[in-house]
């Protein structure tokens, strides 16, 4: 799994590619935690390069959302397709997160 981080329009963007599984999910957790620690409150996970996510990855999204909520922040998700979208849907996570087709739409949306 590769995670690259950038900032755009006041939001921290995490572009995630490859596989988020039991082995690699802790890396994504560390990246999210470090951003929140450094004061970021509005994260966007761009997942168009992600082909696989297991429940280990879902846990990190849930934990990150729970951390950000009392800080009046959020993690938006965009670019999901294939198995990743299916896993979010089967888990009921689609309704827990603000989900957008593309990064542009995620950035343009009002809070």
């Amino acid at each position, binding site marked *: 799994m590769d995670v690259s981080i950038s900032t755009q329009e006041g939001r921290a963007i995490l572009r995630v590619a490859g596989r988020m*599984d*039991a*082995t690699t999910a802790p890396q994504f957790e560390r990246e999210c935690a470090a951003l929140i620690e450094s004061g970021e409150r509005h994260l966007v996970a761009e997942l168009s390069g992600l082909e696989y996510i297991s*429940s280990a990855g879902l846990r990190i999204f*849930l*934990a990150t959302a729970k951390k950000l*909520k009392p800080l009046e922040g959020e993690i938006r998700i965009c670019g999901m397709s294939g198995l990743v979208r299916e896993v979010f849907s*089967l*888990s*009921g996570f689609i309704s827990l997160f603000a989900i957008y087709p593309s990064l542009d739409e995620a950035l343009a949306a009002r809070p």
Partner: protein
Amino acid sequence: MKPLPRDRDAAIRLPATDASIETAGARVDAILSALGVSRERALRIELALEELLVNIVSYAYPADGPGDFEILIAPSADAITLTVTDWGRPFNPLEAEPPRTGDGIDDREPGGLGIHLVRELARSVRYERAGDANRIAFTFPTGGISG
């Protein structure tokens, strides 16, 4: 589906450790690819396998005790069945309470999602206690993407 190449063993036995989950995934990925299973389908099979192996590594054996898991891969004409065995304490993960997928962020807990995904993605899943072993077999079709 292509037959299993003779130089590949369709049984994989490894110690029940975190590192083995990745090793097993890579080996199963290679076997599925050799069998001609589509990438989309292989990813779903690997997801079900990962969830079951994480359970075994986390719960089957005492924290400091040794133990193995074994994966058997059995392709048929239009489906593929993976059987995962461990020799730990009796545990049927299919009896776990399903996650409450309608809850909001505050109420959602991460537990139970793995087995829920296995049930939803696989065509069938069954558990048996066979002697001193836990055995879970799950089947995926190998034709079109649905089902």
